[in-house]
């Protein structure tokens, strides 16, 4: 039986859109709208989806860097949804985050050694000497030479900065790391180095990852399970190979077919979706994907499809995907 390290139940995060003289909320951006999933110990669970699908918001909300609007976040059996900042502090030792932008996420005025040491200072771990030892250890683990201790972020390339961000995340020996687009700002030849490092650290430090990314080839390589998001909702969850070999939700099918393939001899049948992603302020009624779905029917407008287990851990939110993975798609006339 796999043990879940984190459970999210009916999570919602609405951001207010303010207007008028008194800056009252005049509308709500439904960034995350009723999302439930679990992350098992030692696995890499990935959230994929296009910009605005809410994947980053989920990552930040479960770390309570953003307060959820509704729903529950359960970390190792404890409901932390309503924890205050001071109640969260001891838990944060176990939960860390790696950011997308290796330029914006490091303090330019601090030398690398201090950036990596900061979490130890905040959590009052050890004396200064012990802290410095741990910083050097962390630097060694991520492949940064300890001589760089006194250098500043601007002296490093994008890939090395990302290593600094990773060293800062692992210095407290966390159990769980949210990696928010950790390689998307990096060049192809550097991307694979950082992915290798993340996979290696997972083995060595028995880490659990929530991996947030939009590059599906990368996600396929690093993940055990994948959740596909669209407009604040989960459309499908499945084991990585199951998702890629047998995508059932029409959005997942279109998304996977849109991946460009670095092989000129393969001409893929591509499902080209019409139109754009609707605004999350005023999402479509019923199924949020229906405005772009080639199979949409009346029921899709009337009823929100629930994310349901159709067998062996494969979840889909579509009216026309039945138990056992049978699909009843017919094209719109």
């Amino acid at each position: 039986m796999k043990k879940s390290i984190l459970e999210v139940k009916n999570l919602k995060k609405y951001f207010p859109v303010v207007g008028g003289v008194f800056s009252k909320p005049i509308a709500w951006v439904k960034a995350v709208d009723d999302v439930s999933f679990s992350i098992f110990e030692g696995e890499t669970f990935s959230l994929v989806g296009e910009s605005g699908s809410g994947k980053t918001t989920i990552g930040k909300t479960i770390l309570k860097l953003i307060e959820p609007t509704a729903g529950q976040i359960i970390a190792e059996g404890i409901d932390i949804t309503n924890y205050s900042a001071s109640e969260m502090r001891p838990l944060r030792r176990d939960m860390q985050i790696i950011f997308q932008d290796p330029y914006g996420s490091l303090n330019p005025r601090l030398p690398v050694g201090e950036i990596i040491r900061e979490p130890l200072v905040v959590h009052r771990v050890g004396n200064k000497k012990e802290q410095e030892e741990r910083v050097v250890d962390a630097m060694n683990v991520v492949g940064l030479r300890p001589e760089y201790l006194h250098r500043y972020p601007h002296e490093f390339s994008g890939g090395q900065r990302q290593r600094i961000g990773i060293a800062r995340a692992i210095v407290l020996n966390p159990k769980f790391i949210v990696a928010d687009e950790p390689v998307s700002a990096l060049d192809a030849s550097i991307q694979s180095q950082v992915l290798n490092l993340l996979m290696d650290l997972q083995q060595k430090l028995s880490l659990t990852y929530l991996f947030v990314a939009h590059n599906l080839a990368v996600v396929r390589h690093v993940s055990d399970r994948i959740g596909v998001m669209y407009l604040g909702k989960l459309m499908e969850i499945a084991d990585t190979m199951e998702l890629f070999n047998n995508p059932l939700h029409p959005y997942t099918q279109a998304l996977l077919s849109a991946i460009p393939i670095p092989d000129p001899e393969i001409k893929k049948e591509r499902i080209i979706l019409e139109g754009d992603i609707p605004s999350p302020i005023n999402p479509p009624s019923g199924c949020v994907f229906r405005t772009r779905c080639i199979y949409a029917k009346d029921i899709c407008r009337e009823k929100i499809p629930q994310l349901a287990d159709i067998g062996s851990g494969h979840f889909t939110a579509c009216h026309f995907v039945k138990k056992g993975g049978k699909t009843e798609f017919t094209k719109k006339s």
Partner: protein
Amino acid sequence: MEKELLLEIKDLKTYFYTDDGIVKAVDGINLKLHKNEVLGLVGESGCGKSVASLSILRLVDQPGKNAGGEIIFKGEDLLKKSEEEMRKIRGSEIAMIFQEPMTALNPVYTIGNQVMEAILIHQDVNEEEAKKKTVEMLDLVGIPDPEERFSEYPHEMSGGMRQRAMIAMAMSCNPDLLISDEATTALDVTIQAQILELMKDLQKKIETAILFITHDLALVAEMADTVAVSYMGKIVELSNTKTVFKDPRHPYTYGLLKSIPSLITKETKQPLPAIEGMIPSPYNMPKGCYFHPRCPFATDECRKNMPELKEIEPGHQVRCFHPVENTKGVSKK
């Protein structure tokens, strides 16, 4: 049947004269582009691909300067043209689409006005005809309700729609050459698929040649007839697309193709064969072959001399003393 030569770049050099030294952003590149052909120029950040495209349009800013070479476009050297003559060529015979449609479009003019401006400047038409042609172009690039969208401002449109408007503007004067500089990089994958489809379609209709610049190898595989791989301002490999992807002989191309996560392998969660190290500083370029510090096959010869771009088989040029011999299994989707 030999296609008609449209653009020939001969030994083009664009150098940036900075206080810290000379940066050879484009360092003697040779490229040929035929009528109605798509040439992919691929490389990582800092390889000079964008500077190359700006050099063709003579839009390189201070402290960058042309430092030699020729750009023969339709039989005439663009580098010898007056600024007045260049202005007539830009937008009408050579058009360009940029990565970020939001910054490339003027926020205070409507989309329609911006497309119409290009038509009014370069074509002998009155305002009414130009407007009609603009609406036709907006329709052609798949913008719904083109007559209404004509009077919308860039901020009212989504990223995909803005990029479509940019394409409408670029194609409005039926250019002989379209330069696409990372045109789909800022877009989501399903929108990227739409835009690529549109570009292919228009290329057939309008018979435009495309210089397709990107960092994404997969996109080149889909779009290009010929591929040039650039590393630190020099072309390292040049051939037809199939050859580059099936039989990459330069260690950089080979390493890059091997390092990107595959979409078919079952061996996920395994270390990726990454290229070691990182790109050198442009102020402190290595002696000999620029790639040698990262190359697993480097010898003393590579550390001393810069190899020439040589034809190793008909139509396949490689800049390497020791081209990779066994390239089997490199292309794996």
